[in-house]
């Protein structure tokens, strides 16, 4: 896990609206220590499966569930199948972040950002492995999670049920469809018949109006650069 640190650090600094220039040496040293603590408190797990899909009137049918979404229908328009992915860092890290908030809020904020970044990077790694299973005429779309654009949060339920994620990795949902453990990700990755833009336009993003990255002239991790 430590080999991922450079990637995690870059993403963490971005989440904290910092970069290598304005991060001081003692901050970076402390962040590295926190990362070591983080990786001692995680049990990362990934589940990935490929399902056939069909789309009708902005409603994507994944076999055992459907998702009504303009954004997702557009993303998957050239796809006949799709990967469903779920990643988690496990339940212990949530507890550690809560405890750290009592002990040292500043460390807790950094730890929280490190954990979010790591979960995202584990998704990237799994995606890279998924690419290897594709034929020459298959291409991945970008990764799209429930909560992005107009994809409802309850779409996570279909992904988790199909992957049997509660039983296999201990990931579930609250009544308002938030993932537990908190440091978990669910997503769709389309398998397209053509090369797709691996990014998303700010136009379909729910928070584009007040996005802090945009305000700084920057983009978030999923923006179509």
């Amino acid at each position, binding site marked *: 896990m430590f080999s991922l640190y450079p990637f995690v650090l870059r993403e963490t600094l971005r989440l904290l609206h910092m970069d290598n220039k304005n991060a001081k040496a003692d901050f970076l040293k402390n962040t590295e220590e926190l990362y070591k603590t983080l990786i001692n408190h995680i049990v990362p797990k990934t589940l990935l499966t490929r399902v056939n899909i069909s789309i009708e009137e902005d409603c994507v049918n994944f*076999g055992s569930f459907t998702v009504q979404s303009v954004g997702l229908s557009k993303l998957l328009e050239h796809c006949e199948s799709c990967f469903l992915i779920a990643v988690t860092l496990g339940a212990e890290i949530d507890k550690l972040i809560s405890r750290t908030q*009592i002990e040292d*809020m500043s460390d807790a904020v950094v730890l929280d950002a490190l954990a979010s970044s790591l979960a995202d990077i584990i998704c990237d790694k799994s995606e890279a492995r998924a690419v290897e299973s594709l034929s020459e005429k298959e291409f991945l779309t970008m990764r799209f999670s429930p909560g992005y654009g107009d994809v409802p949060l309850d779409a996570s339920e279909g992904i988790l049920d199909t992957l049997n994620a509660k039983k296999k990795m*201990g990931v579930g949902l609250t009544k308002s*469809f938030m993932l537990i453990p908190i440091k978990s990700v669910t997503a769709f990755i389309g398998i397209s018949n053509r090369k797709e833009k691996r990014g998303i336009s700010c136009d379909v993003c729910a*928070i584009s109006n007040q996005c802090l990255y945009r305000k700084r002239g920057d983009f978030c991790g999923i923006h179509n650069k």
Partner: protein
Amino acid sequence: MAFTISNDKVLILDGAMGTMLQNKGLKAGDIPEMLNFTAPEIIESIHAEYLAAGANVVLTNTFGANRYKAQKMGHSVEEIVTAAVSIAKKAIEGRNGKFVALDIAPCGKIMAPTGDLSFEEAVEVFAEVVCVGEKAGVDYIHLETFTDLYELKAAIIAAKENSKLPIIATMSFEGNGITFFGTSIKSMVLTLEALGVDALGVNCSLGPKQLVPIINELLEISSLPIVIKPNAGLPIIENENMRYDISPEEFADYIKTFVKLGVCAVGGCCGTTPEYIRLLEKNLDGIIPGQRTSKNFTGICSPSKQVYFGKDVAIIGERLNPTGKKTLQAAIRANDINFILKEAIRQQEQGALLLDVNMGLPDIDEPATLSRMVSEIQAIVDLPLQLDSSNYKALEKAARIYNGKPLLNSVNGKKESLDAILPIAKKYGCAILGLTLDENGIPETAEERVAIAEKIIIAAEKSGISRKDILIDCLVMTASAQQSQVLETLKAVRLVKENLGVKTVLGVSNVSFGLPSRPLLNRTMLAMALMQGLDAPIMNPGDAEMSETVAAFRVLTAKDANSEQYINKLSNFAQQSAQTNDSETPNLTYAIIHGLKKDARETTETLLIEMKPLDIIEKIIIPALDSVGKNYENNIIFLPQLIKSAEAAKSSFERLRIELAKTETSGAVQRKKIILATVLGDIHDIGKNIVKVIMENYNFEVIDLGRDVSPETILQATKDSGASIVGLSALMTTTVGPMKKTVALLRSECPNVKVIVGGAVLTPELAKFVGADCYAKDAMEGVRAAEKL
């Protein structure tokens, strides 16, 4: 014939239902319980195949049959369970010695505080299934595949409250011997044995090969019959198809080994088929389970940590008891959870192995407060707890919602106490602490105290509580008032251990009340008591002299191998004192701007010699915080530094507030009250907590209601506190609705209160939509807005 399970007889359970259904075309994501209606003949034929293969028990097709799944299926829980039981009963019809087990698995939601399923709702969900299952005529209740000890406890309570049927409970562990939710094997065994299940064990997750160490541990620490249902090995992908890597022959060989070691009930989970059960049954022909012994550990636990008394000195942290502690009393009254959590964390770091939790104040709702604090502490600190109250209702409520096996403090020799406490301990699976006093008070002689201890033990055993789950406190008297009693107490400790064979606890520091140099008496008493066989002193683990005495005792009694921990502890101590001596005294402005918490407090102390508290605030802290705020707004410093500075300022404020309270000028720094809450449905609260830290250092009095807070609770707190501002946070789109509802409720009932909203999902437009007065993009903006309102 009624179903029974015992250590000396092999019981063969069925194999996988899900695997069989998938082989018959069930797709991922389809609901297996639907087949109870659409294709009952398939379910019946699977049961029949397992019975023909030699299984004595079939589990009903009700793995996920609960109200949440029922909603999606368009059938009621009653319909699903009744259908499944009648199919299984039809399958065993005409076969002798076959049984139907009501299969119950986790309900799919995640328990609070990790998730949002309350303990009582979980009990209700499982109770529905149990009631229908019992009515439909199952032979016993089979709880399986649980990964959260807390959810399993809810299921067991539901089963016990609604049925008299036997209960088998099994959990699923990862290869490291821990479940997804952090339950360890030892904690499972301690908790389930105390709750009184008929058998326990493991199923799913792993194959028999990976289960070897887990099963060995179970056999070693549990006295109950052990039940196993392993997977058919680990899944492997072959030509895009998944299969498991252990053949029926290998599986049967592993099972035979386990039975010879003492496992008595065996079957299969994912990947197993009737062929596995057929070979397993054939292989076990004429074999009886290996001899088991009854274990005698006195232990309590949280889901992940255990304390076994007697093996080593177990320090019980006493700091969470408000008697004589004004700041803790104030914190309990103000519902200042952070203060209590900090105290709990500190005691753990100082070496406490379990924590006493007492919330006894005359003018509060003690049952509600104790159980709330127990949940809050368990969410953050993994130590086992000793639930402490003289209020039976408070003890019962806390014992019910406790996650693991707690120690109940206390029961005594009075009939009233025995009648009230023993049933609570039995029902909720607790160890008990018995005090050697009765209707006639505390007896003077050691022998009389031992007699009361014996009376407690006999009564407890009669109530079904095992002797190993009883600890005795022989009660320390003060040397100033009852000098001769000290030796009687010590003698009683020795006699209770020798004659009654139970473990002992003492509140050591009572001895020194009313005499000078209390630490000297305390540590001497502690050493004397340890020598008499005291297992667990209740003490302040932060008392350096007492904890050093424990460290020294552990060296001299060879409990601390190679004196390692002793050397470590004392060298750390020396280092810490050296550091304090070396430290310079940088100025307060510097300490705040650079976020140096310890320095801020120390320089405040120095400054107080020559400056007035209010001057320090106005001339130093406020300008320093202003400069920090501006640096943050101008992207010169970032969130982590902003928080560090705020926390440094807070430590200075805390010191100054003590000073201000003394001089009664606190009116001069009257703080604006603000309520903070993460709205109903949202469990992400780090953002709200950041706002809290920053706000507290801009002189707001923050009332933190936590996360997932209902509109009604927010309204009530606003009315009760008289706060003029309410800050609401939400991270996800689904919680904008509850936010709007909260604002509307506040508007109608408290029209003068101003509302600030924030959180990742919020925008100025959404803030308008929910009816807030103001939107803040981050903590600093929140402070600025609150200052203006």
